[in-house]
């Protein structure tokens, strides 16, 4: 039996406005700061064919002024209030957020409502942000070793549909052909109040906050939420392999992607997979560190994670477990794959060592708490769990759900990671040593 683990507790109220906007308010008066986050239920998977990278480009456009604000004013109002802001585009959603001193709460809500009302999308802003995004891709992908690896390479082999397999940062040709009309259509269709979740957490009074929210968001006209298509795909039946040439990388790398069960509908199986990833690569006591780094000396590092960006609760079906490694000798790949298969088989056949599951689980809960300590991550987590799982309260239940995962569950998760269910991308190093 696992020892009892502490569980996060928070005060949380749910509301839905007349226009369909779902609202979460979570007061915590321990520090005079508030977090405001808006998640729109549209991400890279919903980009139209021929418009790869559009969800992310559009995220940039949402910062370029709005109904009542000129370009640059959004940033200036947040920062001159003592706050910080950002936005990010994910597979299934796009978020916008700010953390402010609590005396700027109404201002933050106004700023988010103003761009939900109407962003200022002009030819000039589009041209400017196109250049900014191209430079973002240059700095993060084209001009650096291992840039975008493997999130830009693996989906193309692991999935078949355009939605799941395309490059989410975008091809330059696609980005350059985006128009103001495309942006207006995208906004009209996906950025409706009924397709969004607003979370507000921190130093606030619930009634007063709801008053602000009604005042600023309540006036936005109701528009229907788009029907979300299923992005599901049949499981792989045979291993797929590809190579990716990286002219900057000094040593090779590999990414193994395994299709895993639906993270929402089969949450308990998913949690077994989350714990398996920790068993495999969290720290020097983990299975693959011990085997590949320390015993066989084949790789310089190895990591396993769920979700394209390492957050297991960030995506709906289909999603994947990824194992990546960098290794000095290009000839080692077959030995690395064999070792991974052997270690997975060892878990599937023999189960875990005494105490192994408990210590991994204890550490994972500790990591979850650590993330919740920051008001920004707390705010975004509330909104994310509400959007993806339909229940923000799940955050508080995760420790006990994890405690219910058994040795047999982790063995089953390991047994499912078979070579015929995976895609392998070998990064060929073309850089100087």
């Amino acid at each position: 039996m696992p020892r009892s683990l502490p569980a996060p507790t928070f005060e949380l109220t749910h509301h839905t406005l007349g226009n369909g906007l779902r609202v979460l308010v979570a007061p915590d008066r321990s520090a005079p700061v508030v977090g405001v986050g808006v998640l729109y239920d549209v991400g890279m998977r919903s980009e139209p064919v021929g418009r790869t990278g559009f969800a992310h480009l559009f995220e940039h456009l949402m910062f370029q002024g709005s109904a009542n604000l000129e370009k640059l004013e959004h940033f200036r109002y947040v920062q001159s209030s003592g706050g910080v802001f950002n936005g990010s585009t994910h597979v299934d959603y796009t978020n916008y957020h700010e953390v402010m001193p609590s005396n700027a709460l109404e201002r933050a809500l106004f700023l988010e409502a103003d761009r939900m009302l109407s962003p200022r999308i002009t030819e000039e802003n589009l041209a400017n942000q196109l250049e900014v995004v191209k430079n973002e891709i240059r700095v993060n992908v084209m001009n650096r070793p291992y840039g975008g690896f493997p999130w830009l390479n693996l989906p193309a082999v692991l999935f078949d549909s355009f939605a799941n397999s395309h490059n989410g940062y975008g091809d330059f040709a696609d980005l350059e052909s985006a128009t103001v009309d495309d942006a207006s259509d995208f906004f009209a269709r996906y950025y409706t109040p009924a397709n969004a979740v607003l979370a507000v957490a921190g130093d606030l009074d619930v009634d007063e906050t709801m008053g602000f929210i009604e005042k600023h968001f309540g006036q936005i006209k109701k528009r229907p939420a788009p029907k979300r298509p299923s992005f599901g795909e049949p499981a792989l039946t045979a291993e797929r392999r590809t190579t990716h040439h990286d002219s900057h990388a000094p040593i090779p790398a590999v990414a193994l992607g395994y299709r895993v069960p639906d993270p929402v509908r089969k949450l308990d199986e998913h949690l077994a997979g989350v714990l398996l990833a920790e068993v495999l690569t969290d720290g020097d006591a983990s299975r693959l560190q011990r085997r590949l780094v320390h015993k066989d000396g084949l790789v310089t590092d190895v990591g396993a994670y769920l979700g394209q960006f390492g957050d297991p609760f960030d995506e709906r079906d289909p999603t994947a477990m990824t194992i990546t490694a960098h290794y000095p000798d290009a000839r080692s790949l077959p030995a690395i794959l064999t070792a991974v298969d052997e270690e997975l088989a060892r878990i599937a056949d023999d189960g875990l060592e005494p105490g192994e599951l408990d210590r991994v689980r204890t550490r994972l809960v500790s990591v979850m708490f650590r993330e919740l300590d920051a008001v920004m991550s707390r705010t975004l987590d509330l909104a994310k769990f509400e959007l993806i799982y339909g229940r923000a309260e799940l955050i508080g239940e995760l420790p006990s759900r994890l405690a219910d995962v058994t040795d047999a569950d982790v063995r089953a998760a390991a047994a499912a990671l078979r070579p015929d269910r995976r895609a392998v991308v070998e990064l060929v190093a073309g850089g100087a040593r």
Partner: protein
Amino acid sequence: MTAAVPALTKPRKPRALRSDERLHATGLRTVAVRKPGVPLVEVRLRVPFLSAARSHPAKGALLADSLLTGAGGYGRAELAAAVQELGGDLSVGVDADRLLIGGNVLATNLRPLLDLLATVLIEPAYAKAEVASERDRLVERLTIARSRPGVVASEALAYRMWGEHPYSRDLPQIAAVTAATAAQLRALHQAMVRPDAATLVVVGDVSPARVLDHVDAALAGWSGASAASRVRPLPTPEPRPTLVVDRPGSVQSSIRMGGGALRRTDPGYPALQLANLIFGGYFSSRWTENIREDKGYTYGPHSRVEHHVLGSALMFDVEVATEVTAPAMLETRYELGRIASLPVTPAEVDAVRQYAIGTLALSTATQAGLASTLAGLSAFGLGLDWLAEHPGRLVSVTVDEVSAAAAEYFAPARLVEVIVGDAESITAPLGALGPVTSDA
């Protein structure tokens, strides 16, 4: 239609933190802060690590990578499992100034984590096989690091600013790493990983008094004095022709600039801090609004004041598309010249003042953020008082003081410049703006 942007209401004061501090018999100083919120505790042990020895960066980096590979009766995997079982984590980082052992753990498990930390400090193994394995990995990691243009540019800039000073050798040379032995790491640990000048910061859901007693008991056996090391003061950077380092085929140029700055304890520092924000220290800065939001030359420029034990530096970094390298430099020097020659506006100062005060509160609002901030400040003899008083210092800075700081420290003629990029494409256009050299 125009709706008014809501005004700010009266700010609420943060709750005062309960803290306690102790100088232990061994010379170790502990600062303990109660900060509930989540049931965790953060630990930072800062050990001074400055040395003029040429081989020190390599040995120091390898020591940091090898420290947790076994101690006392624990092998590498056993030690990691013991920490994990507590819901904890330990990691080791190093730079020219200090060795930093950082960790976090479920608050109820602080004492056993401190016991494990004591074992690592008092009985590190540095087993030959483990050190050999870490040495190979470090060589690979250094190779990967130096394949990144930003790392190449930062190394070249540090060397151009500070020459052979230890601050320009932060990232070790591979030959020196290859030559470092397990016996040398044991000797270095013996000489420098000592409590007499070290500071331990503990922040979390804990009672400060009880933390101090735990530390007294757990770390009593860690003793001894650190071998003092004399390192010469940081030289003042001399401006020279812009250095272009060739990286053929680069689709972007990595521009790095640096100059001297006021130390954090200098009475003029708050004004310089605000001047930096106005120039390039936050998104609404002149530099960002010009070369990103107006011109689209870059994903984002950044400037910052970096504080080291031996001195502070003003540092600038930006990656720009290869074809606009010279225009980006032109705009950058224009903004530098403008802030150095013309006064800043009261509105700009008000904005950055609120930003600096607000983000200071945010960065210390988490257990981890506060612990890291306090560990960093401890190097300068500063702590919670400094944090509490800093907003007041920012409030009293005048517009003229900010303009004066900008005039002195942002003058483009004072800055050292390095650009890593496709030399064939960028050298001639850059040459039109001023002297350029490829000779490091």
